[in-house]
């Protein structure tokens, strides 16, 4: 379990979200947690003999920034009503989510090694009710944004101020329901929803633009009434700034298109289709651990 001392986060005295200043040390700490999360993810998948390394590594930085800085949550009270919610719509990146939850303190880090094994609380895809901290069952793609909208509507009904964060794959932009949910969020002015698109430009069968072209993706979201921000999804500062900007947007939801690299952090997995859904071999595992060493 990892904790960052609160003092290392410096906020701008006027409270202007976009001017919030993060010192180098704090960002380095986040980056070092992200590296740990990547190591856990690869080890878990290796030990399970199956799983999805590519999408776990591309989304890791976003999840770390959310759980270790952005989100208001308490691992000791996973059912605290005012917590911010995170929905991993691209549920196959479960290893990274589990690693982030364990490092946050929702369950022991040792439990990570039970991924996909019989009787484990860590199912191949996230399961609500089974794993502390998991907010929605996912794995069948395209459901997460709508489920997040439901949580955001409930927050509005109950006059609660917590926010909902949803991480989507870019392949998930193929799914009709993603756009149905996009329409709903802007129709109901869900400014408490922030969606992140893990824009690694690869899906299972090939490059997104070859399988089902998405571009101009930002324009599509704009046309659906969303506030759109584009960033480098591996840059902690950019992730945090975008999120702060989203908090300031009133009357409509925000989507952060995060340009990422599938398999980020392990040289031979970067940009690789092969490691979308395949565990590394013994040698590959050794090399990955070397590359992700401190």
């Amino acid at each position, binding site marked *: 379990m990892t904790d960052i001392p609160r003092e290392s986060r410096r906020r701008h005295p006027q409270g202007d979200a976009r001017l919030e200043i993060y010192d180098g040390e704090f960002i380095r700490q986040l980056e070092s947690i992200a590296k740990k999360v990547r190591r856990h993810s690869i080890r878990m998948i290796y030990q399970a003999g199956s799983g999805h390394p590519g999408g776990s590594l591309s989304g890791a930085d976003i999840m770390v920034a959310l759980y270790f800085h952005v989100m208001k949550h308490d691992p000791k009270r996973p059912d605290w009503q005012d917590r911010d919610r995170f929905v991993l719509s691209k549920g196959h990146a479960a290893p990274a989510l589990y690693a982030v939850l364990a490092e946050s303190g929702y369950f022991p880090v040792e439990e990570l090694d039970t991924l*996909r094994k019989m009787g484990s609380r860590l199912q191949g895809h996230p399961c609500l009710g089974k794993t502390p901290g998991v907010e929605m069952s996912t794995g069948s793609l395209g459901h997460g944004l709508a489920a997040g909208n439901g949580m955001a509507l409930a927050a509005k009904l109950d006059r609660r101020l917590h926010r909902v964060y949803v991480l989507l794959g870019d392949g998930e932009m*193929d799914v009709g329901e993603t756009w149905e949910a996009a329409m709903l969020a802007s129709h109901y002015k869900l400014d408490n929803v922030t969606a992140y698109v893990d824009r690694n430009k690869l899906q299972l*069968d090939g490059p997104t633009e070859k399988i*089902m072209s998405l571009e101009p993706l930002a324009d599509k979201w704009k046309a659906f009434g969303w506030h759109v921000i584009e960033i480098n999804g591996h840059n902690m500062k950019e992730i945090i700034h975008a999120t702060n900007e989203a908090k300031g947007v009133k009357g409509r939801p925000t989507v952060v298109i995060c340009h990422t690299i599938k398999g980020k952090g392990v040289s031979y997995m970067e940009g690789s289709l092969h490691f979308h859904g395949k565990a590394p071999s013994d040698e590959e595992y050794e090399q990955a651990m070397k590359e992700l060493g401190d």
Partner: protein
Amino acid sequence: MPVTWKWESQRKQYGKALVELGKERGDIVVMDADLSSSTRTSDFLAAFPERFFNVGIAEQNMMDTAAGLAASGKTVFVSTFAVFGTGRCYDQIRQSIAYPKLNVKIVASHAGITVGGDGASHQIIEDIALMRVLPNMTVIVPVDSLETYNAVKAVSKTPGPVYVRIGRADVPTLTDKNTPFELNSATVMRDGADVTLIGCGIMVARCLEAAEELAKHGVDARVVNLHTIKPLDEKTIVKAARETGGVVTAEEHSVMMGMGSAVAMCLVENFHVPMKRVGIPDTFGESGGCEELMTKYGLTAENIVEAAHDVLRRKK
């Protein structure tokens, strides 16, 4: 399991059959939803790129597009994982394929609990139920890779909607060139007079193992491969019930409304005998190894033997 069995992937034979069909017929079109490398429709893509359409992760879109192609004279094979090729797009299949009786063949892989590590979200154990209740739909669960090949060839010549369920894991080859494959007609894999074990898919091998075990106790079990669940070969089922006086069914599917239920309904109306259904109880699956899951959810040869003994007791 007997060491003599040869294990092979059903998906590989599916890919092979598709390519042959593509060569033989210009009306064959293939679609997939971002899983072509897993379902092996990628083999068809490599051979006939202009007749292959990958819709991305959009199964509902795929089914209605397939319906449009079929309504324009094409014979369309659509593939994805079984969980996404049935429940995900049920209304599209119902409204646009089954209702207008269109020539769409859904060949779905990774069915059942043997998907393993992915867990319950991916382990569909309701697909036979969902598909067999649709009017006009034919439902086939091939027993091995060769039968997958034969089934694909056979359904390509049969007009109308078809659902073919195949698995992820390699399966033992139980049929050979001489095994007849006729749609709607179950195959007797082993003759016997004391009890009948009716299996589909991977459970047929376990029925054969169970029959070996029962033979050691002097029980002569018949084994039937019920590869076509709809339309149901009532003749073979009723004949087996009449001649053996007891029936056990075995399926890698929920016991609610799967193959065993179809057999039970047939027997209750035609010929009463003691019966027991082996299958997954009314629950979702979970992550785990194939064999571990098969054991936990009651899908072993021993479970079939036990069920047979129960039926035999009730026969007396």
